């Protein structure tokens, strides 16, 4: 599989899981994974899951995503923008999120996840 296919599968899977079964995102992170959510940085599956759980019910809409290979070992950099409706709010919020995916035993995990709200939508 090329990195573009992996990135596409990842992006679909991540946001679908986030919106429908957020607890299952755990399997995408490792103890040394890092999430930067706005100005907060946390590390490890527990802290990351806790942080994402504080956000209410979310429906993501992906508008762009792009991916580039990065590094020697098959790492992939994925950049996504779109908007999210939180708790049914009438005002969707725009976001920009960047992932570094690391290959591990035939699958991938998220090492860095950098999330930023970018505009009031």
């Amino acid at each position, binding site marked *: 599989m090329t990195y*573009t296919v992996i*990135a*596409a599968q990842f992006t679909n899977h991540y946001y679908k899981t986030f919106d429908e079964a957020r607890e299952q995102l755990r399997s995408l992170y490792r103890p*040394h994974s*890092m999430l*930067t959510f*706005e*100005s*907060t*940085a*946390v*590390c*490890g599956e527990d*802290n990351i899951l806790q*942080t994402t759980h*504080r*956000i*209410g019910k979310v429906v993501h*809409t*992906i*508008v*762009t*995503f*792009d*991916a*580039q*290979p*990065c*590094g*020697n*070992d098959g*790492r992939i*950099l994925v*950049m996504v*923008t*779109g*908007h999210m409706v*939180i*708790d049914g*709010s009438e*005002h969707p*919020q*725009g976001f*920009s999120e*960047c992932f*570094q995916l*690391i290959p591990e035993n035939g699958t991938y995990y998220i*090492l*860095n996840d*950098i999330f*930023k*709200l*970018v*505009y*009031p*939508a």
Partner: protein
Amino acid sequence: MPNAAAPSGPRGQRGARGPRRGGPSRGGISKRSGPRGIKTDKDGDLDMDAPVRQTPYSRGGSAPSSRGDARGGRLTRGSGSGGIRGGTTRSHARGSGLVEITVLGWQESQGNRDSVIDFLERKTNVRIKKSRTQGDALIISVPFLQVAEIVKWDGCRYAGSTLSINAQNVPKITSKGDEDVIMAANPRPSEKSDTIKVLEQVLAQRYNSATKMLDLSRLGEDATLRQNGFFDFASTTSKMFPALMLVADRKFDSAAEKRDAVVSVTLGYNNLKDIKVVSCLAATFSDLKNLSLEGNMIPSWASLDSWRHKFRKLEQLVLSGNPIVTEDGYKEEAMRRYPMLQMLDNVVLDRPVIKIGAAQAIPSGIMPTATHTSSYGSTKTQLPLGVKPGFNLDDSGVGMQFLSSFFTMYDNNRDELLATFYDEASRFSVSANTMAPRTHQVGVSIPPKPWEPYYQTSRNMMRTYAASLITKLFIGTQKIRDAWQSLPRSKHDVSDSKLWVFDIWPVQGLPDVNNPSNLEGVGGLIATVHGEYEEVAEGGKVPLKRSFDRTFTLAPGRGAMNLRVVNDMMVVRAWGGSDAWTPEPQIFAAPVNEEEAMRQAKIVELRRRTGLNAAYAELCMIETGWNWDGAYAAFERAKADNLLPPEAFI
């Protein structure tokens, strides 16, 4: 405002970091020659003429053999008393930042528990925070970084007995090691205490308390050192400096005291071709603000490599009179290596400092609300999530430095930018987010096909078919140049920090262009930037603004800036203003313990860099008040002093 309160965030520092004009305020370096007139310190900042502090090896009753005996005795008793060396120390120490030290032998003395604590406090100037007895042992707790001070007194005599002092998880700095350093420098091995006295005298003569400068220039001409035979043998000449540093270090009870007393050091005119002999200066005076190596023979930056990551607070550096000043990219390398540097060779550096991201809360009313009106009409939409400024863990300043030059070059000279930071393996792609809502721009008429200039290059994988995914990833300077030429010319306003937000994170495993056989790769940075630019308009039209997100991965490179762009991914969208990262009253109701989260992140990063285990990384952070630079420097010092036991790395 979380960021304003974080003491170690580089953003927090930036306000205080503007280029200082008109010379240094403290202890500037200027050329001095001839013998130094200052003999004594009158204002008591640093009492170089104080009597030699009694140390284990300067007293008769503690020859190495007797210490050896004492240690043997302790081991026997220690194991007999059961469980002293048990694993409680770590968990106990984790919470408080204290390390437990076992003192044995005091029960055989004429003193008691309180008097032995009093004795140790007096001798070491360390306040003993906690104490308890366990069997024969007195267990005292002291801060991590002060363990060495206490343990140094292992084997000393106290009230008729010999004390055995041993930290449980942190091995002592053996005074034997210190002694070796001093002895190695000693031209007359029979007179070791004299060596210390001579070196102390030299330091006293060369220290100026008014300017807080230690003048170590022309050491070869030093009458005191010459008279005492330090330069009689090649073997002792090179050992003199480490011994001198050791003696200097002993004058201080804390890093803070040292930092206050010695702001500047000059090593001018010492015929140095490299810094091997003097490299320990960095360990002893790690917080120097001003350093001069004037008039030596240093040929290149490579010969200064062992100080590459040292002197993180250096503001002034003088290398005039060394061949290095003619090296290509000399000034840029100085700026790159020393992020706080403000003056090089007595010239103020014109470092492009832009303050990206809001470092302080912006008073309401300053924001031009008319142009920030969202497309939905209200001036400030009530959003479900509060928004916040970025997170930055770029302690070296490399990422900031890159960003501060990148956007100006991107606007003015994209070819130069390519030549500076991009190479044949760099990758660039851009996506147009055409769905983002548009914020009203006063006086701007939006063209009928606003995204046309971007369609040709846009790689948005939501819309692009597989075949063009390959052609729309631009690899190498030539292809990236073509792509950039197809994009509208831009103007980023780098002067207004409110318009920008960025995150910078260290990453590993990037390709190593300097050593392609290094398959593990090198460390670098991920930087994500959010901001806006104007498309340069023709014929007096009001320029159209765009918002953008851009992610870079940066790795060590070969060019003048020694930095290369590995990945450059950009998203362009309709202008949305910067409300999103303007801090607003917190409506994110659930309590987020940001302080704790930041701490956890720092621990993880410190572990990654140092290999320390979690407990030791946390100790190190606690000891240094969660100051990032401080913790790393403390680690390096502790490592250099051999203070860290093997289990700290498990």
